[in-house]
């Protein structure tokens, strides 16, 4: 299996954002998807750095794709989505609005926020030009197996959510702004203080979710370190790693080592918790009782 880096879901300063892609040029990942996925208001802060990031990655031999916005409502967002086609890199569709702008016959990829739950949807997307699909994170291993089998005959590569806080919901409302008593239009970029999102805890102070502007993520970090063999056997071509602020390049190397059989899952788990000791992991969507479950020893 290969590694794909998904678009950064958080709002980082432009220099930090660009620094990630300088680092990734040297990381053992095959493919990098970048651009703004979550909130159109963030894009102007780093938009002019995107061409350089793409050039750096392409020069390092990476496949590069640009993500579309996850939720497109405003005129500005429609324009942003339409303008992706002019960037001359592959588009990763994360809302079907982008597909309205991609000419028939132009290859594209499909991100985890497009609902691909079954073979007919997959086949329709393949016919329309999809060459790669990252499946929705809530899919079970049984569904992944069926879809990966179907994808093989369609010539589509299947990717699954490999590591990182899981995108669970997107809204018209900005929760970061609401938390600070503001509206979305006057958010004053409240989300920029939380480079990995803001922890949302239950009334028993149990970590549960993560707030990221208009997006809600899982509190736990999905981690497929214990599922690599099963996913490979199911026919999955790549794991998607989602950028985080702490040692993300190190995390990419760690996953490469897991895929190459250089370290086992226990050692990988210890290494992940070495980067962030407070981190909780999950892989329950595959075949747990619920998405938040973790199959590892440190299960709580």
């Amino acid at each position, binding site marked *: 299996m290969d590694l794909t880096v998904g678009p950064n879901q958080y709002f980082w300063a432009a220099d930090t954002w660009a620094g990630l892609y300088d680092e990734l040029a040297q990381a053992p990942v095959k493919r990098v998807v970048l651009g703004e996925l979550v909130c159109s208001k963030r894009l102007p802060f780093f938009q002019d750095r995107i061409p350089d990031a793409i050039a750096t990655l392409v020069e390092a031999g990476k496949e590069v794709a640009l993500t579309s916005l996850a*939720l*497109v*409502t*405003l005129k500005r967002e*429609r324009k942003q989505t*339409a303008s992706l086609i002019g960037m001359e890199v592959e588009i990763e569709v994360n809302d*079907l*609005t982008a*597909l*309205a*702008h991609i000419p028939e016959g132009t290859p594209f990829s499909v991100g985890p*926020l497009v*609902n691909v*739950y*079954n*073979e*007919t*949807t*997959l086949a*329709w997307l393949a016919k329309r030009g999809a060459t790669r699909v990252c499946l*929705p*994170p*809530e*899919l079970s291993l*049984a*569904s992944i197996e*069926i*879809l990966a089998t179907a994808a093989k005959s369609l010539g589509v590569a299947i990717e699954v959510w490999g590591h990182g806080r*899981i995108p*669970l*919901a*997107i*809204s*018209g*409302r*900005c*929760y970061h702004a*609401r*938390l600070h008593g503001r*509206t979305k*239009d006057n958010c004053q970029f409240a989300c920029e203080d939380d480079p990995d999102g*803001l922890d*949302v*805890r*239950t*009334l028993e*102070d*149990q970590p*549960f*979710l993560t*707030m990221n502007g208009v997006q*809600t993520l*899982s509190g736990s970090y999905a981690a497929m370190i214990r599922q690599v063999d099963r996913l490979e056997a199911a026919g999955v071509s790549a794991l998607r790693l989602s950028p985080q602020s702490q040692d993300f390049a190190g995390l990419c190397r760690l996953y490469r080592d897991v895929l190459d059989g250089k370290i086992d899952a226990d050692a990988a788990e210890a290494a992940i918790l070495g980067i962030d000791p407070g981190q909780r992991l999950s892989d*329950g*969507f595959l075949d*747990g*009782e*619920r*998405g*938040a479950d973790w199959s590892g020893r440190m299960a709580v």
Partner: protein
Amino acid sequence: MVMEIVCPAGTPAALRAAVKAGAHTVYCGFADETNARNFPGLNFDREEMREGVAFAHSHGSKVLVAINTFPRAGDEAIWHRAVSDAEAAGADAVILADVGLLDYAARYHPGLRRHLSVQAAAANADVINFYAETFGVRRVVLPRVLSVPEIAAINAETEVETEVFVFGGLCVMAEGRCSLSSYATGKSPNMNGVCSPASHVEYHDEGGVLDAKLGGYTIHRVAKDEPAPYPTLCKGCFSAGDKTGHLFEDPVSLNAEHLIPQLKKAGVTALKIEGRQRSRSYVAQVVGNFRAAVDALEAGRPMPEGMLTRLSEGQATTAGAYMKVWR
């Protein structure tokens, strides 16, 4: 043209009550995972659907069949059968969300009118027109993330009819794109047609305090004599930073009755009432009120006001994203 009232029916009795109360259109689903209100004891078997459609048609009302979950890989035949059976029952349209199912319906049931479910989260004119051109979609149920001016802008750029929610439960997240429930319980709207299911709710009474848990997560806490709201995830109580409260949304429901004239001006074709899980008396009362409102609007009479407040969950209502400040 008078605005169309689209009313929920979770049971044949609710369908008949809605029709008698003046619903122009009723929507319902089969009693299985093909629809997004897959609750125990709700929905229609095939025979009930045929009878329901016949009853509605004999009273001049239409029936829409919601087949708006996302078919499970390997089991798509269940959803395909639902589309065929809806057509055979005489349904006026099916409400679909999945691209594959839209493609299937367009290919094999071209004569059956297709509406795009709110579960498809089509939130702008570009994507709505794309669904129309690609799958022949004739009406879109708009996601509850849009303001009234944004709805007007959409209608200015599309021939597709728009239907908007005006009353009942309020999803805070873009529908069809939310896995909060399956993260906490394993059951999701997209896959199972349920959200925050009752099977995963527990109440704990400790020292005069009532905790409501969903999937083991405590998301509500009230004094024992206070009314305890149902622990729906996005309306739960959480803490983040130094704040504790309803961080996503208060336990409110949607009531946009006062916006009906603006929605008509914005070009909206149909007003949708949420609540297939509701009783027939509730349905009859809500329908009666909304029918009176659109008839008054059409006749140029003043709109009746505040008539629905006491039917709302927890007595608190919001106009949601229709008013831009909500966001």
